[in-house]
């Protein structure tokens, strides 16, 4: 039967469940599960919504052979216009376990490109995975979104960071550094030297808020000229993404003399074996007046440190934010959080090598799954 790609409806749910069972039976990763419900829990489409998720499935007769999600959201573009852009995510094809369906992945992507010619992908787990390889093969523009981390409790980091404890010799050395306090001393010395070299940050006040007020609209308008390409971060969008009722997030604003300088959203990342038993916090999203990024990073870091996290992570693409994180004692490491733009979108981002320096992508631009915060 020829493959047809259709919006995911309630009547497809049993076939999606069967698809998920076939992937699991063939040994696919536990995370590779397509949405069991046809209506998105996060950002469902309504008549009024400017930001929404939709799901699509690849049907082979009665069977589902794959599916994808498409988040539609308004973005500010380099020419100053605002346009609706699609985010292609949660792509799953039976081709990953059965070569007979190898073409399904390409058909899903093409369907998304037809529905949303201005399309981007984000994350994807690194350049070694099939999706980024396919996008590069199709001539999409791409770059990694730099990854930053800050060690709050060096001893716990040394004992728990599983990706570094890869041999018995390394484990011995790291345990020794943790037990003697030399790891703590080295890290604190590094931070002290770093802070001496960093520009001074003017005093500001930080406030944890239950929800964002209308003043973030003014801030959005004041700061947006410093950004070449970014999702609209106005009050409507922030309330939709970080509703006051959601306990996963801490929302904070940074002020000076009664004026709003910036805001950030922080939260806890879901447990991940590579971090052992560490509590890992994330600076998920942020926005600031140009030049005030360091004050926001400092405040967001303080909040997460007060909340007892052992390690703080963030992904940031804009050069101002990158500098702010680097000057705040964050280290960078290889990023597996990849941004890629379709050819049609890339035309609007030309020259991409210049645009990418001032585009603003964070974990908040991802798929909304708490494990990815």
């Amino acid at each position, binding site marked *: 039967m*020829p*493959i*047809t*790609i259709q919006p995911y409806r309630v009547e497809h749910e049993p076939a999606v469940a069967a698809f998920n069972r076939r992937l699991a039976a063939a040994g696919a990763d536990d995370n590779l599960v397509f949405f069991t419900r046809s209506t998105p829990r996060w950002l469902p489409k309504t008549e009024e919504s400017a930001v929404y998720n939709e799901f699509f499935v690849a049907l082979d007769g009665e069977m589902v052979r794959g599916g994808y999600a498409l988040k539609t959201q308004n973005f500010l573009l380099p020419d100053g216009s605002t346009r609706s852009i699609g985010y292609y995510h949660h792509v799953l094809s039976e081709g990953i376990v059965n070569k007979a369906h*190898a*073409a399904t*992945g*390409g*058909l899903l*992507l*093409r*369907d998304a*490109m*037809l529905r949303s010619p201005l399309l981007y992908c984000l994350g994807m787990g690194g350049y070694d995975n099939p999706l980024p*390889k*396919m996008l590069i*093969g*199709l*001539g999409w523009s791409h770059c990694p979104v730099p990854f930053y981390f800050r060690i709050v409790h060096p001893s716990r980091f040394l004992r728990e960071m599983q990706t570094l404890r890869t041999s018995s010799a390394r484990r011995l050395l790291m345990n020794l550094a943790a037990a003697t306090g030399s790891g703590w001393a080295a890290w604190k010395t590094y931070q002290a030297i770093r802070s001496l070299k960093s520009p001074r940050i003017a005093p500001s006040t930080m406030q944890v808020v239950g929800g964002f007020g209308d003043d973030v609209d003014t801030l959005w308008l004041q700061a947006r000229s410093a950004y070449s390409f970014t999702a609209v971060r106005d009050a409507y969008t922030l309330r939709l993404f970080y509703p006051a009722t959601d306990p996963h997030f801490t929302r904070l604003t940074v002020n000076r003399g009664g004026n709003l300088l910036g805001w950030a959203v922080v939260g806890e990342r879901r447990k991940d074996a590579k971090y052992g038993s560490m509590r890992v916090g994330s600076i998920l999203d942020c926005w600031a007046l140009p030049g005030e990024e360091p004050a926001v990073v400092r405040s967001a870091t303080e909040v997460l440190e007060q909340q007892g996290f052992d390690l703080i992570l963030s992904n940031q693409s804009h050069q101002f934010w990158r500098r702010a994180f680097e000057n705040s004692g964050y280290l960078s490491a290889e990023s597996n959080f990849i941004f890629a733009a379709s050819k049609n979108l890339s035309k609007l981002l030309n020259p991409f090598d210049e645009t990418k320096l001032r585009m603003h992508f964070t974990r908040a631009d991802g798929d909304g799954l708490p494990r990815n915060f």
Partner: protein
Amino acid sequence: MTSPIFEQVRTIASDLFTVPTDRITGDSSAETIETWDSIQHLNLVLALEEKFGFQLSTDEIEQMQTIGQIAALVERKLQTAS
């Protein structure tokens, strides 16, 4: 097959698969052209749609097995459109 459409399809395929035009025949397929993988197949679909200004269905994409079949499909699509 040496129609103008066939020649245009062959030129597109030659550029995408980085194979000299004279090595591409009507019987050329993913089995005979090493660089014709699933990504390049999708690139071929997109290039044909852009060049000839039509849209291929998933059914038609799955039928695109050889260069000859693809040229015939393009001829049919253009005739239907005119």
